[in-house]
Structures are given as C-alpha cells and as structure tokens.
C-alpha cells in the first residue's frame, strides 16, 4: 500500500504522484470515473498499475488516497 496523490494535469486528465518516491506520471485510464463510483484500477503512462478502492469521487482535486501497487514499471 502506498500513499498517492491524484491531481489534474494541464490537459484536464488525471495525474498520478507518489510522494515517497517523487514519481510524477500521467494516468492513461481509470476503471471507474463517475461521481458515485471512482477509482479502481489505474493505468499509468509508464506502464505501471495501481488499485484504489472504488469510492465516491472526491469533491476536489488534488486528493491523497491509499493505493495498492499491482504492477509498477520500475
């Protein structure tokens, strides 16, 4: 489990940030992206995958959340 931060990037998509390792990356896809259900598996541009417990979408970004590392590129 790792603390990650989800934020908006300049193009309006999601961005992933892992403070512990100063990793910044784009998010290519998020499994659930509706106001009621948000999270699930997120795929990073680097090829890594993280899992956020599906939950109601946060009121405001950036948002810190616990995530499970499923597969990281590095």
């Amino acid at each position: 489990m790792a603390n990650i931060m989800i934020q908006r990037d300049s193009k309006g998509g999601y961005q992933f940030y892992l403070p512990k390792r100063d990793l910044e990356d784009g998010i290519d896809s998020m499994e659930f992206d509706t106001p009621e259900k948000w999270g699930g598996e997120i795929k990073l541009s680097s090829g890594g995958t993280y899992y956020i417990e599906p939950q109601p979408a946060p009121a405001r970004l950036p948002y810190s959340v616990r995530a499970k590392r499923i597969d990281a590129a590095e």
Partner: protein
Amino acid sequence: MTAMTREETQALIQEVLEVYPEKARKDREKHLAVNDQSVEQSKKCITSNRKSLPGVMTIRGCAYAGSKGVVWGPIKDMIHISHGPVGCGQYSRAGRRNYYVGTTGVNAFGTMNFTSDFQEKDIVFGGDKKLAKLITEIEGLFPLHKGISIQSECPIGLIGDDIEAVSKKAAKEINKPVVPVRCESFRGVSQSLGHHIANDAIRDWVLGNRDESKFESTPYDVTIIGDYNIGGDAWATRTILEEMGLRVIAQWSGDGTLAEMENTPKAKLNLLHCYRSMNYISRHMEEKYGIPYMEYNFFGPTKIENSLREIAAFFDDTIKANTEKVIAKYKPMMQAVIDKYKPRLEGKRVMLYVGGLRPRHVIGAYEDLGMEVVGTGYEFGHNDDYDRTIKEMGNATLLYDDVTGLEFEEFVKRVKPDLVGSGIKEKFIFQKMGIPFRQMHSWDYSGPYHSYDGFAIFARDMDMTLNNPCWSQLTPPWKKAA
C-alpha cells in the same frame, strides 16, 4: 565548431565511457543521453535520482545541505541549530549569499552559525541534554528570535537522539516554535531528499500554526515560493509582481520570516520558482487549502513575458491590463540590453551543469542573447525535471545527470563550448583550460539574475566573462613545457 549531429554526440558519449570498468560503464550510460525533443517521457532516455557510483567525482551534496543550506537556512528571523559536530555548520556558513534585511545577531540570524558542537561524550551519552541547554541559552542571548529549527547532522540519526521530544518540551518553555528536522546527511542520494524532508517539516510544524487566526486578505495575495534571494533575486522578482498590482504576502525562503511562512495558506496563488526544492509544500497547500500553484520562469525577457501573462490569467482584468503595462514599460529597456550585448554574444555556445531549476530555466535567457545551450544537466534532478527540460533543449544536444568530474571535462574538451556555467568546484579546472566560466550557483558573487533588473546584469556578466581578453593567454599547467 558547428552543431554536432545525433550520431556524433552518441559517439562522444561512448568514447567518454570507454575508460570505465564495464559495470561502471553500464551504470553511467543510463545517465547520459542525446536530447530528442520527440521523447515525451524522460525516463525512456535518461535515468536520474540514483545513488552516485563510489569512486567517481560527483558534485552532489547531502540531505543536511538541502535542508539547512537551501530551505531552512534563509529564513532570517529563526535560529537554525546545526545539531551535531561543528564542521557541517561552519563550512557551509553564509555560503549561499541569501541576502536579507535586518540586523544580524539582533533580529536576523542568516549568516550566523549555531551548533551544538558534538564531542565524543555526546556521542556516547547522547546529546539531548546539551540541545535543551543550548535552546535555553539561545533564548537568553537572542531574545528577538522568532523560532528555532534543529537541523540534524549524521550522528543524531545514528545514535538515536529524540530531538522531537526535546523540541516539544523546549517549545513550551520558550513559547516559540521549535522545529526538529530529521535531515541526517546519510538519507537519500543527494540534497534533493533534504529538500523533501525540510518541506515535510514545514508542513508538520509550521504551516498550520495560524489557521485559526484572522488575516486581512485581498484578492491579489500571492507568495513567492522557491526563490532563495541569491544576490537579491527575490527582491527583483517582488518589485515586478508588485508593479502588476499583486500583493506578495510571503517569500520562501530568501529574506523570508517565520510569520510569512505561517501566513502562506492565506494566499490566493503560490508562485513556484524552484520546482525541485519546493513542489512538495506547494502540492500540500493545493490539496489542503485549495491554493493553486504555478511554475514560472523569470530568466530573460521572453520567458518573463510569458510567465507574467500566465500569472495574470489567474486574476481579473485590472491585473491583466497592469501586466501589459509592465511588459510595455520594460520592453524598450530590455531591447536596449539586447541591442548592446547580442552582437558581442551571438552564436556563442554554452554548457551548463547546475542544480534545481537552472539547467532548464536559464536557457531562455541565453537564447534572448542569441546564445545556444549545447549541453545541460542536473546534479540532483528527478524524472519530472528532465521531462520539462527535453522540450527546452535543442535536438542532439547533450543531457547529463549527476555528471562525474571526468565526463564533464571530456565533454567540454570535445564540444568546445564558448562558456561553461557550473559551480565553484568546476570553476578553476575550466579556467585553467582557458575556457570562460561563470558560476551559476552563486551568480559568481554578482546578481540578481532573476526578473527584468536581473537580465541586464546577467547580460553584462556573460559579456564580461566571455569577451575577456585573458582566456587566449592561458596555458594549462599540464601543457606547459617543463
């Protein structure tokens, strides 16, 4: 010499790497790259933020340097204790020329060195008692200080002193913030982790202190984050922002105070100059307080103009109109500077190797003078720094991460730049080789270089160095006939 092609640059890297043993070569190869603007993600071409190889000459610092020297040190009305043996504090004392206003020793303490001067008995029996006594002494001798930070040196982490407990107790006694910073030098691979630890300490011990108190805010409150006022940089930046009609409520941390830091959460926008050392706290404030942050670049008129307009876009039309006025006001002045120096500097080639934001931020300033940056690298950059650099640099130019003494020397010998910009440790070798050199950490004791005022000084300094007649007169000692 004309610009090198991609193949030539790649061949140069391979040639320089040849002297290493195979294992070292493999490792170093990942840190050297030929710039390719089509690459979106830097990690595909360059590795960064890894441990330096034992045995090579690296130019990096330590976590203590990142915390005490960069982030905390410039906060002028706090006393920063170098907790541990005397050397770390003494040899780094007042080295960064973080200018400030105040009377040193009375209400400002920037250039002073406070240390607990660890001896053998403190290592054996622990130094907590000494630290507590030191804080009481400080309170007696310097009653106008606004707070204390404790910057740990290596032994503190090794012997397991509980500086947090001492801090909490002392803070109650003297009724001022006492901040323990766990920036022991063995943490991390470079000063970069020290910045992160320092930012986290600010987040945990300082930032929320005035959340409950009243603050008379205006819609135009901004902060300058990550400007260390080297040679007066932050002051030059501040005047421009104030001319735009903004109110600068905090400077981090050059010429900054504890009160300014505590009031930062009341700002409407955080302006972030040194992304590498202060993005952590900016991200935190964005999440907790909803204050957006924006990276800006105040090197060279082109970049300043872009940045000013981007900043103005966050505010209403009066600010936007003011900004255009400011840009129009300075345009003829900047044109005069360019007209004067561009003919003398046009077409010259520069190699840079510095830290923080400068390897990419100063490129625009050189380009405004008609110069070209042919190689750049970060001492302690991360992937996100290189992501931002790739677009700024020309194709087929050199990128080097945590470059070693040997590599840098060989690159300079082969690329033959007209100017090298790096730090004091690199200065004399290149000067002896007859290559003009500017220190880009301390602006070679000149400055400011930020903002409009700074650009005029920057252009003058570059001309002064490059067109100095002394360089052709130099023969390196190792080439002299015996």
